């Protein structure tokens, strides 16, 4: 028998309190019916005796203390799952909004998931090719990894997200699909995503979840969980390699803060709840590969750093959980470099085990190290040049500066094109060949002999001779 509770005892923002409830369980879903026939759903977030605190999705507008009838569903928040999800557009709770009719679920699952037993995990080893040189060569995305993109308001991370969705692929031709969850995005951005995917004809391998900026925040808190539940189903039940793109995590965290403060919880840093780390971890840690299952879940969460501050709690805690980060840079963006990936603070922790012979190419790791090391020198030279002027730099520093410019323009700033991993690595060698062999200290002789091909530029040679002369004169 279904019990209906009439009325509420208190309403506070999206939280309502219901008294006299029997048999409620923690984290259970409830349905609230209004007198006008409309229906909203909610979740029990706290129980004290017979008193339940319920968080209402879709907001409490129109609620009064007497016009609601509440029923308990007896189970936690669930999402409908079916192979037909591919190609569909859903709302933040996983319900279709594309007008193509309901989804006939094969099964329903709890959106909270369960933690993967560390013993059952498989260490991620193979890579996903994004077609973007700066990512593929220097911060390679590995299947089962979580690699966030740290951006800022106004930078072209949406374009980058679309480009990744369009180009990303696994090299060995296994099943590949994308779950795209947009949280708190503006209406026109959502349209941009939709139309770009349709234009690129990739919609049939994408599941899209849209929670717009104007949608209730409580729904936003569920959106990534619903997306990941769908991803886990596609990956571990249907054996696909799934890439989950979550944008924008900053909106998610802000929603969580709003929710936490309305519950009257003690705030931690910058007003975010003390459990922000655990909460983010419960999302990010759902990436991975499981023993005995074919598929994998890879995540690219995108977040906009408030005020471009990488030490802000959101990027900071994210960086502690994820396996590396891709950082976008406003200066590069301003100079028209796209994608504006700042190479030095970017890192992929799992990269070393998923590249090289058998995966990409044997020279990948040393090449990446050398590019990092040389580009780090570019920064030193730039700093020096800004003090004493570029004219006064030593010839070696001048060469490094030249390399830096070419690297940013050609290698990083590839524009909206796709490169194969070979093209990317070859381009890397082409750029390194601008420098004398002796300055490449991170690659061994064998690789140098094979890949190092200096251009016979007479001007360069002359510079070298002059340098030797200059040194002798000292």
């Amino acid at each position, binding site marked *: 028998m279904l019990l209906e509770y009439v009325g509420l005892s208190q309403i506070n923002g999206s939280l309502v309190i219901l008294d006299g409830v029997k048999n*409620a*369980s*923690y984290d259970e879903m409830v349905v609230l019916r209004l007198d006008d026939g409309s229906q909203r759903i909610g979740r029990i977030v*706290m*129980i*004290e*005796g017979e008193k339940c605190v319920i968080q209402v999705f879709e907001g409490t507008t129109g609620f009064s203390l007497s016009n609601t009838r509440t029923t308990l569903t007896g189970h*936690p928040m669930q999402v409908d799952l079916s192979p037909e999800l591919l190609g569909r557009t859903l709302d933040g709770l996983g319900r279709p909004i594309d007008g193509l009719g309901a989804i006939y679920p094969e099964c329903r699952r*709890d959106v*909270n998931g*369960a*933690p*993967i*037993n*560390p*013993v*059952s*995990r498989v*260490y*991620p080893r193979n890579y996903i090719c994004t077609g973007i040189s700066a990512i593929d060569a220097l911060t390679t995305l590995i299947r089962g*990894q979580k690699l966030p993109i740290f951006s800022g308001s106004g930078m072209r991370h949406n374009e980058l997200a679309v480009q990744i969705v369009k180009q990303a692929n696994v090299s060995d031709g296994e099943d590949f699909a994308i779950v795209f969850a947009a949280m708190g995005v503006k209406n026109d951005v959502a349209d941009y995503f939709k139309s770009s995917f349709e234009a690129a004809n990739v919609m049939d391998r994408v599941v899209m979840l849209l929670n717009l900026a104007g949608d209730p925040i409580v729904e936003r808190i569920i959106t990534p969980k619903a997306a990941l539940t769908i991803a886990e189903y596609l990956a571990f039940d249907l054996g696909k390699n799934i890439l989950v793109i979550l944008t924008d995590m900053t909106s998610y965290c802000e929603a969580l803060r709003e929710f936490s403060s309305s519950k009257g*919880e*003690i*705030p*931690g*840093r910058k007003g975010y709840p*003390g*459990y922000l*780390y*655990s909460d983010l*971890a*419960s999302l*990010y*840690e759902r990436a*991975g590969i*499981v023993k*005995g299952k074919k598929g994998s879940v890879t995540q690219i969460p995108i977040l906009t750093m408030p005020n471009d501050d*990488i*030490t*802000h*709690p959101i990027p*900071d805690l994210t960086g*502690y959980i994820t396996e590396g*980060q891709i950082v976008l840079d406003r200066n590069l963006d301003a100079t028209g470099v796209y994608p504006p990936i700042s190479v030095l*603070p970017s*890192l992929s922790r799992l990269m*070393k085990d998923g590249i090289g012979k058998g995966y990409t190419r044997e020279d990948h790791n040393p090449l990446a*190290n050398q590019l990092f*090391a040389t580009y*780090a020198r570019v920064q030193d030279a730039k*700093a*020096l040049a800004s*003090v*004493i002027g570029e004219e*006064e*730099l*030593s010839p070696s520093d001048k060469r490094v500066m030249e390399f830096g410019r070419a690297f940013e323009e050609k290698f990083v700033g590839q524009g909206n094109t796709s490169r194969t991993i070979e093209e990317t690595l070859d381009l890397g060698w082409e750029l390194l060949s601008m420098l004398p062999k002796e300055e490449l200290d991170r690659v061994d002789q064998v690789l140098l002999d094979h890949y190092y091909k200096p251009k016979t530029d007479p001007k360069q040679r002359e510079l070298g001779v002059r340098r030797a002369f200059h*040194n*002798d004169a*000292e």
Partner: protein
Amino acid sequence: MAENRIYSINGPVVTVRGKTGFSMMEMVYVGKARLVGEVIRLSEDAATIQVYEETGGLAPGEPVYSTGGALAVTLGPGILRNIYDGIQRPLPALEELSGAFIGRGCSAPALDETARWDVTVLAKPGDRLTPGRIYATCPETPAIEHRCMVPPNVSGTVTWVAENGSYTVNDTVVKLTDDRGNERVLTLCQKWPIRIPRPVSRRMPAQRPLITGMRVVDTMFPIAKGGAAAIPGGFGTGKTMTQHQLAKWCDADIIIYVGCGERGNEMTQALTEFSELIDPKTGRPLTDRTVLIANTSNMPVAAREASIYTGITLAEYYRDMGYHAAMMADSTSRWAEALREISGRLEEMPADEGYPAYLPSRLAQFYERAGYAQALCGQEGSVTVIGAVSPQGSDFSEPVTQNTKRFTRCFWALDKALAYARHYPAINWNTSYSEYLGDLSPWYYDNVGPDFMQCRERIAGLLLQETSLMEIVKLIGSDVLPDDQKLIIEIARVIRVGFLQQNFFHDQDTYVSLEKQLKMMRVILHLYEKSQVLVAKQVPMSRVLRTGLFDKLVKMKYDIPNDHLELFDDYTAEIDQKIGELMRP
């Protein structure tokens, strides 16, 4: 007694109304699913319980069962090679029970109760057994002998012993009559509450280094066996890499690796790497001396709080057998955050940055459990603690880093700038320190070389000079420096790149003996001295550099294999010869 029933639920915190009869820190089972919990607050009419598992689905009115004892770990053979969660549930057993995803209310005995151990009983009827006495041994792994000790609260006279043979952990091997005349039985295992330090006979000064094979640690900032060290660093600076490296190569007998609120994939990596690597001392896989405690960041937060104590209790247990145990905690900040989260749920008054006011005392209690001691059995053992700290926003002034600094004597500060330049291990030589240098000097003098500490001083001095010179270089470039200062910059580069930087993936460079470390320092300093003479004679630095000696020294860590240290003499000879050539006009 009335049955105890759940009254309210808020995240991992559950309260029970009425006179409960619970005691503080008692372990309880919560709800029909029998989730593990611990009593953390008692009042006349209510008990507050923190639950170590997901509380979703619990309902008020469900029963709470008392166990009568504090949250404890089971100590006995079978701990090594295992992998546990924060409250000592074996993860491989949980995998069998609930598959790849951890279900709720799963429980499995901490030690395999069916495994049989080849036991040698040492006690004889009539023996008087005192706490800590070893009454039986068995080979736990081919590398480690497990010694069963009389629990610290038991003593008496042996009345019966079992034959040598194969037994399970719960079989009785010794019976004794205690001082009050009661009969007690000893099996292969015992229980110990995780929040109480195990007693020792006396604490001793820490005077032997924990040798790690990592040059920047062993030479620059050494840690003693029984010491405590902190590794703070922002994300991406290599905390976990450094911890893994220490766990693989340090010369402790037992490694307890606690992944506290960290990444699942990292634990998998540790698991696979440790089973593939062979311990050079025993010729067996490293897992034979290792216990992993994996409470990843998405596992319940209360168990994360307990995982640190579980880890250190296991370490103390092996110390009591006379082993040198080392515990790596990655990361203690997650543990502090778990404290903060639970404290917030209890609505306690927050102190700095929302952390509870008792954070410093909890940190102190934890780090004070490290130490070098004479165990109750009479043998010497130690517990070394190396805690990673993940400061928010890489800001070392935050409460966890600052308070950790007060209770550890070794501080290996990881630096973002070094990590960006891919200089690993990114331990910053200007901000790190070790207070053990003085205590360990005599050991280095006797066992490595009388000049070890002098060499170290001079290397440290050169690095310090470089730092101040770099201030100038950053402003005006290195071309304008006089040659003697250019020499310092060049030799410091050799020290930084050739000595401090270490490639963990290179088979020769991943572990470097103290002897090789000393020889490397000697060669570098030899080159410096010789070049100094040249520069004093007005030979331009550019000519000195063109000898190629500096670059050669940078690569010597790879070029000289660990078993051919005599090659260092060739380097010295080459330096003498090439510099000698330059001496001649």
